[in-house]
């Protein structure tokens, strides 16, 4: 039997560009052509001004650690304790992720430390955007 895996996202037409991006090593965000608002998660219109004219662009992959929990209970695909983190991207939006190559401890996971995106392949279709500390 295969090891139990973490929950697998199922892309929709509105989010496909994001998952195409991570598969190709890009963290893609969207920017409104009308009001310049940068937003996440994906949708084909601007949640600030409702314009349907929006553009996809590759984000820098730079972020800071905004907040997190260190989960101590078993979840398929994870070895507790592990951190469930929210990072604030340099471009503004926040996203949930995991912090890799770093002890999963309050001492190592300090709020506001700089992070860099790291792409984690789940299968041929899905690559998850994870983050590691910028020094690592």
């Amino acid at each position, binding site marked *: 039997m295969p090891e139990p895996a*973490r*929950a*697998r*996202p*199922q*892309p*929709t037409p509105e*989010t496909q560009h994001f998952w195409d991006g991570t598969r190709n090593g890009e963290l893609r965000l969207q920017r409104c052509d009308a009001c310049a608002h940068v937003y*996440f*998660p994906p949708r084909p219109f601007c949640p600030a001004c409702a314009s349907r004219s929006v553009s996809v662009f590759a984000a820098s992959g730079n972020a800071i650690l*905004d*907040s*997190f*929990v*260190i*989960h*101590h*209970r078993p*979840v398929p*695909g*994870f070895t507790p*304790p*592990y951190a*469930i*983190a*929210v990072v604030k991207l340099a471009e503004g939006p*926040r*996203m*949930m*992720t*995991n912090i890799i190559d770093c002890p999963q401890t*309050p001492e190592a996971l300090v*709020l506001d430390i700089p992070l860099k995106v790291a792409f984690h392949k*789940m299968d041929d279709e899905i690559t*998850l955007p994870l983050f590691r500390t910028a020094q690592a």
Partner: protein
Amino acid sequence: MSQIQLHADAALNAMEDAGLKPSDIDGVATAVETPQQIAHYLGITPAWVDGTSVGGCSFMIHVRHAAAAISAGLCKTVLITHGESGRSRVGNPPRSVPPSSLAGQFEQPFGPMGPPSLFPIPVLRYMKTYGVTHEQIAMVSVVQREWAARNPRATFRDPIAAEDVLNSRMIAYPFRLLQCCLVTDGGGALILASAERAADFPHKPVYILGTGESVETPMVSQMEDFTSSRAFRVAGATAFRAAGITHGDVDHVMIYDAFAHLPLYGLEDLGFVPRGEAGRFIADRNTAPGGRLPVNTNGGGLSYMHSGMYGMYALQESVRQMRGIAPAQIPDAKISVCHGVGGMFAASGTIIFGNQRL
């Protein structure tokens, strides 16, 4: 007892309390279970229904909607029910996050498993922003256990100290077992009618002075501000404005406490204390028995009970306090603010009750 029977058991108790039969009810509101399930099971033919299901504060929002519907003449007598086999899971449909939903794509792959792993995510940011300590937050659980000790129905009644909280089993750092709600079965029901009609009921009615509601996001990671809930701020301010009262008028407060940070956010976002000061306010025993602002006097979700959606039980405690029959009755309490959350800061409802018509 199955989940739907918990609804029905509570509904029968509420109808008996009000001296009503199913044929007297013309409005039905409930969450998770649908109004058609409840109406049919109880033999009610409604002319108005509300199936708002936005999590644990759905029942606050039902109260708000029912009051508006009665005022508008859409119906006369509304039954609001809740039942939940949170612990036994008898007749309780499983909750799941569809993998194509935004939460399924952009939160679930990173390892959350239900509210204990998601709801505390903003806490470390809140603590860093305002310099709030683990010891201060631990006092939320300590103080509510003191209230639970006065409630014979409470699940946990033995006193605890801050060090017990801080030494309890880690669930999702920074929160430990005693900072997470317990999980029970439960149910509750309310009946709403015009003040004129309620005057004929056999027991003392309580009055709705003001109400508010809002929603923010189904994904905790997408809250606008990890140190404050927008839905709390909108719902609370709307209710206070509608009631025409000030914070100094409030004798009793219920703040839905699925986890220990919620009373902190609630006290601040409803405007009882300035931002960042709720931890000290609670640690200084202002919300404890004998304090100047009693909060969560039934022991709350942390010590009384919590079936998964707690809002109904908070409403019931406010009703008991306004009727003067609560186990930990606040002497001369005239105004109670009951504030709920749904999902992980996803939704909010606030009801302000009075023991007399204003």
